[in-house]
């Protein structure tokens, strides 16, 4: 078809749209709204995704971790035996290159309180370093963050509620009375003080109707008042801390890889020597001497670096003797409860200073760590790690700082490398609302399809005449697809504009979720919501939805028009 022909078809399409103004306005308004809603929802979901990624980085992961490669391979099991020593040189090297680094020894265990126990993940941390790479420490709701040299724990709010440690936020009346009895110690002003901080939980205002519970005396749900001042909370915490409510015990089995001090000859001959690689044999043999007197091979190597090499060799050989089990009970006191915007530090998790766990009174870590969290020194709180914090960039900086390559059993892993599962989940989570928005889009296209169908029907005679004049089927279909495309285009452009207008305040100011949660009443939401939700601009989505809507709209004209041109022309012309 000639260009001229298309031009003429465009003219007819536009004229037809102008002829049926009301229909044009209604149909394009439907498209406009669904495009706008789609843009709005995608931006909102995008904002949520960015927000939760930011939270993961800021409160849980930092930008990257230095770990042994073997640890990373089995990271889901928290393989504490895949640890490494001499981490201080890596930290110092990173510091020199403008990065903060925080050592951690991560292990699984059980935490016992006076009222129960819970499986926990423990992070043995250096408090100062931890605060230099992560921000959850400023979300210690009650109490404070643990200090070096003390058997102190900060635990997540979920664990605190479960173990009945610290300040209860939603106790039953009887529990509260018991707490008052212990904490106030018959001191009336203290008793009244504690009582004044609680009120009966407001059931009717909440999301859930739990009124039935209140019928049993003493079983009523109480709630910590919303507007309690920080000073009063600190005073309450002090009173509670004076009781044994916050005393806990950690039970953990830690497997630590270590070069064995002694090796029995049967193990030496039967296992170690048969499984070692040829090139490693010499190294190991040189490090041990056989003591005829006690009948064992004794470690004589002193050099830490060589010991590391020997350990690697033994691990490569799969030698069982290179792992040391430590089963320890450690008494500690909970000094703080964490309630951050990210769920991980709020869960069944405990943070304890690493320095108290080094010897027999702790976990016998002896300088081993499982990971070094890494963040650029002035990394902005609001942005996700960029290219300058990629695993490559950090590894390069680290090697620069070290002046030598990283040992080959260690590697830097970017936060995303850990998040594969999460990111998949995130994608899944954002599909459901997207599907909903797409459905809306689809419904508005039924509108278009209906408009076009009626138009085609109404203009049957006109179509017959145009065909009689020699217009081909393809030209006719093109004409109507153009018309529907214009309809989609108008709606899309307006929808893109509207979408951006409603999106603007959501990106600039966001929505204060905590204010919203407050207005729902103080019951219902069992945890504190702190975040301000912001949308993000997603340019591909904005243009993509506009273009998709236009293309889809024009496609909607295909079938009705094809049906119309299948009709014999004479029938079209006779059509009334």
């Amino acid at each position, binding site marked *: 078809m000639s260009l*001229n022909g298309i031009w003429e078809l465009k*003219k007819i399409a536009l004229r037809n749209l102008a002829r049926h103004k009301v229909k044009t306005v209604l149909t394009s308004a439907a498209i406009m709204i669904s495009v706008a809603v789609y843009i709005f929802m995608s931006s909102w979901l995008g904002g949520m995704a960015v927000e939760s990624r930011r939270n993961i980085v800021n409160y849980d992961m930092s930008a990257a971790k230095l770990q042994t490669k073997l640890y990373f391979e089995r990271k889901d099991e928290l393989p504490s035996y895949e640890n490494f020593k001499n981490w201080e040189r890596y930290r110092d090297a990173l510091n020199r290159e403008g990065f903060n680094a925080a050592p951690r020894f991560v292990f699984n265990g059980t935490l016992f309180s006076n009222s129960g126990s819970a499986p926990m993940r423990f992070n043995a941390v250096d408090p100062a370093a931890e605060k230099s790479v992560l921000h959850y420490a400023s979300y210690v709701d009650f109490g404070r963050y643990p200090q070096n040299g003390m058997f102190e724990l900060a635990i997540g709010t979920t664990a605190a509620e479960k173990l009945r440690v610290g300040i209860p936020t939603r106790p039953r009346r009887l529990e509260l009375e018991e707490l008052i009895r212990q904490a106030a110690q018959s001191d009336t002003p203290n008793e009244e003080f504690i009582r004044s901080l609680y009120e009966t939980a407001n059931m009717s205002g909440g999301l859930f109707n739990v009124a039935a519970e209140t019928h049993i005396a003493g079983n009523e749900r109480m709630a910590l008042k919303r507007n309690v001042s920080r000073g009063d909370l600190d005073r309450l915490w002090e009173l509670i801390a004076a009781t044994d409510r916050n005393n806990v015990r950690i039970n953990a089995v830690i497997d630590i890889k270590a070069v064995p001090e002694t090796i029995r000859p049967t193990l030496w001959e039967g296992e170690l020597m048969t499984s070692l690689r040829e090139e490693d044999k010499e190294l190991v043999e040189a490090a041990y001497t056989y003591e005829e007197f006690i009948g064992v091979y004794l470690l004589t190597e002193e050099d830490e670096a060589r010991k590391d090499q020997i350990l690697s060799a033994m691990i490569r050989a799969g030698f069982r003797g290179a792992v040391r089990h430590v089963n320890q009970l450690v008494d500690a006191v909970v000094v703080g409860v964490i309630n951050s915007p990210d769920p991980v530090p709020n869960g069944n998790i405990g943070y304890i200073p690493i320095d108290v766990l080094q010897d027999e009174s702790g976990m016998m870590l002896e300088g081993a760590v499982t990971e070094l969290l890494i963040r650029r020194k002035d990394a902005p709180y609001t942005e996700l790690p960029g290219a300058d914090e990629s695993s490559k960039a950090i590894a390069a900086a680290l090697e620069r700082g070290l002046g030598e390559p990283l040992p080959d059993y260690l590697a830097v892993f970017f936060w995303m490398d850990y998040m594969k599962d999460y990111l998949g989940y995130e994608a899944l989570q954002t599909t459901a609302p997207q599907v909903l928005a797409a459905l809306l889009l689809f419904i508005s296209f039924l509108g278009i399809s209906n408009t076009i169908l009626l138009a085609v029907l109404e203009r049957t005679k006109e179509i017959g005449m145009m065909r009689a004049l*020699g217009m081909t089927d393809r*030209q006719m279909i093109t004409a109507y697809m153009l018309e529907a495309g214009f309809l989609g285009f108008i709606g899309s452009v307006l929808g893109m504009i509207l979408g951006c207008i409603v999106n603007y305040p959501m990106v600039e100011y966001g929505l204060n979720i905590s204010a919203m949660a407050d207005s729902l009443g103080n019951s219902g939401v069992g945890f504190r919501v702190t975040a301000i939700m912001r949308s993000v601009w997603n340019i591909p989505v904005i243009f993509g939805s506009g273009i998709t809507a236009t293309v889809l709209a024009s496609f909607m004209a295909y079938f009705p028009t094809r049906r119309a041109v299948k009709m014999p022309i004479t029938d079209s012309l006779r059509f009334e």
Partner: protein
Amino acid sequence: MREIHRILVIKGVYRMVVIKAENVTKDYALDGQVVNALRGVSLEFGSGEFSAIAGPSGSGKSTFLHLAGCLDTITGGTMTVDGADAGKMSKQELALLRRNKIGFIFQAYNLIPVLSVEENISFPLTLLGINKKEIKERTAKVLKEVGLADMAKRRPKEMSGGQQQRVAIARALIKKPAIILADEPTANLDSTIGREILELMVALNKSEGTTFIFSTHDTMVMDYARRLIRIRDGQIESDVVK
């Protein structure tokens, strides 16, 4: 596909055959019944003829014009239009044949309501891909010929029936087709205006040599025609050249 044009001699004038129907039949299926609209029609039309097909209502006049204009497919026989067998052509080829060779004028005018008078008239030229300048010149010329020069910008619904039919004639004429098929072009018009329209067509037939085939009940149209074909129950009753 194209056969050598036959030559027809009518009253001593040599004419090229533009339409040749051989034993054409057309059946319609209507509510499970078969209507035999045409029962074996054989006719030849030469270039420049000015003929009328007359017959009672339902006799098959419109059906024949539609088949001659390639708007529908024949049931039996052969229909040769401008030397090509219409039964053997694809939809696309038929559309191009109509575009290039045939002009239609209908009783119901069938103008495109969203286009102005001049846009309606120039529509066939646009389909032919003719350049804007030439379209403009030819439209102006044809508008003058049909006496609508001052109504170029109007929309069809702002005009009388007679004026609309002139637009339809101008639209059929502008591409200088070999054949113009006019299905009861004066049926909706009063006799004075009908006469004007007929005069116009006679003039165009003389000046441009365009072949006209009408269908009609109208005795006035029959009087104007130089060849009168009578049809009844789908069969030719008589074919008289005056």
